[in-house]
């Protein structure tokens, strides 16, 4: 009996959290049109979320591209097809690794910071203070952060993919001696703008919504203690990673499954 009650309790609290999350999502969406009047708030958040994530994105993109070049070369050279290295590197990055790895890094670098910031605002009663002054914290605090995350992730993913392609170029062409022209021409023959690049951008837009939404909700819903904020931050990273990986499969199946 006790066990059954525990199961019921956790199921109920799960759906309550899900419901609160969606209500918050719609409240944020309602706050978005107001951001047109206050672009300064969004710019400030794009700096915090996007610009400060740039270094880790560029470095990761470079090394992911270099590893792809190295591994791809070692596999392809057995078939005498090392000329196709460019298409392997570009398709892997543009379709999958660019959006996904960027979203995972974004969850660790920016999502956790968002959760901690908002959770701490809640713990120190800054959010309640705003409400007392008739300022809606969802519109003033959450909406600009949501918009910033939504806009930053595709930008970061595009930078990640572009840098990765050059990383693969350095290793493949510079170190391993793949032909320069073949690297680019095979890549251009295999990669299509609408089917590959644009679908990657759509993926990163979806991940931007999901990653920022989870981060904001976990912070806004955190138990206002230091332990609660720390647990919310952990949950942000774990849930965002799981959501991104799961959604990536669904999106890939929809986009490339035919």
């Amino acid at each position, binding site marked *: 009996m006790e066990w059954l009650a525990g199961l019921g309790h956790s199921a109920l609290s799960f759906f309550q959290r899900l419901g609160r999350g969606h209500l918050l999502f719609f409240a944020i969406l309602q706050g978005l049109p107001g951001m047109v009047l206050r672009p300064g708030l969004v*710019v400030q958040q794009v*700096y915090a979320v996007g610009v400060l994530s740039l270094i880790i994105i560029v470095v990761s993109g470079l090394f992911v591209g270099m590893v792809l070049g190295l591994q791809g070369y070692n596999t392809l050279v057995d078939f005498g097809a090392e000329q196709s290295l460019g298409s392997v590197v570009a398709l892997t990055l*543009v379709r999958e690794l660019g959006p996904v790895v960027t979203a995972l890094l974004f969850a660790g670098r920016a999502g956790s910071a968002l959760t901690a910031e908002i959770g701490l605002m809640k713990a120190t009663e800054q959010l309640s203070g705003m409400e007392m002054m008739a300022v809606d914290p969802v519109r003033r605090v959450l909406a600009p952060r949501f918009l910033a995350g939504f806009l930053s992730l595709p930008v970061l993913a*595009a930078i990640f993919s*572009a*840098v990765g392609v050059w990383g693969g170029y350095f290793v493949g062409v510079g170190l391993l001696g793949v032909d320069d022209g073949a690297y*680019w021409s095979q*890549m*251009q023959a295999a990669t*299509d703008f609408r089917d590959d690049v644009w679908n990657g951008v759509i993926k990163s837009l979806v991940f931007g919504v999901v990653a920022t939404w989870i981060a904001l909700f976990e912070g806004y819903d955190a138990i206002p203690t230091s332990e609660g904020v720390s647990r919310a931050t952990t949950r942000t990273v774990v849930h965002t990673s799981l959501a991104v990986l799961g959604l990536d499969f669904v999106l890939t199946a929809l986009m490339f499954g035919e």
Partner: protein
Amino acid sequence: MMKSRTVEIWVGLFVAAGLAALFVLAMQVSNLTLVDDEGYPLTARFDNIAGLKVRAPVTVGGVRIGRVTAIDYDPRTFQAVVTLRIQARFNQLPEDTGASILTSGLLGEKYVGLEPGGAEEVLAPGGSIAITQSSLILEQLIGKFLFSKASEEK
């Protein structure tokens, strides 16, 4: 908090870098051509197109002048109907142009190669290419080779 001017400059740089990255992906990686959708359609019927895909290039003398836009099957003639879209500026293909399905390299992708003939009339938009040569199937070729070898040894 940093001065808002500095923040704005950094954000501007960030967005510009993102747009530049997307531009590189579009131009350098996927070789986006903006005039791709324009042009006129032609159809060609093949007995066998094995391996040809939609969006495969259409070339004349190795230069890409269009793409395959649709592949269909005609149940009456048992032939594959391939629709090609040729860029509008290449509108002087003679009427007796031949089409064959070729492979770039041994294992590369299939593409449609056009062989212009000598006729005075040009192919009108929506016209049909009469002379076609089917896709080369490696298994059949190996089979024929082995068969001829075996008959030689008799």
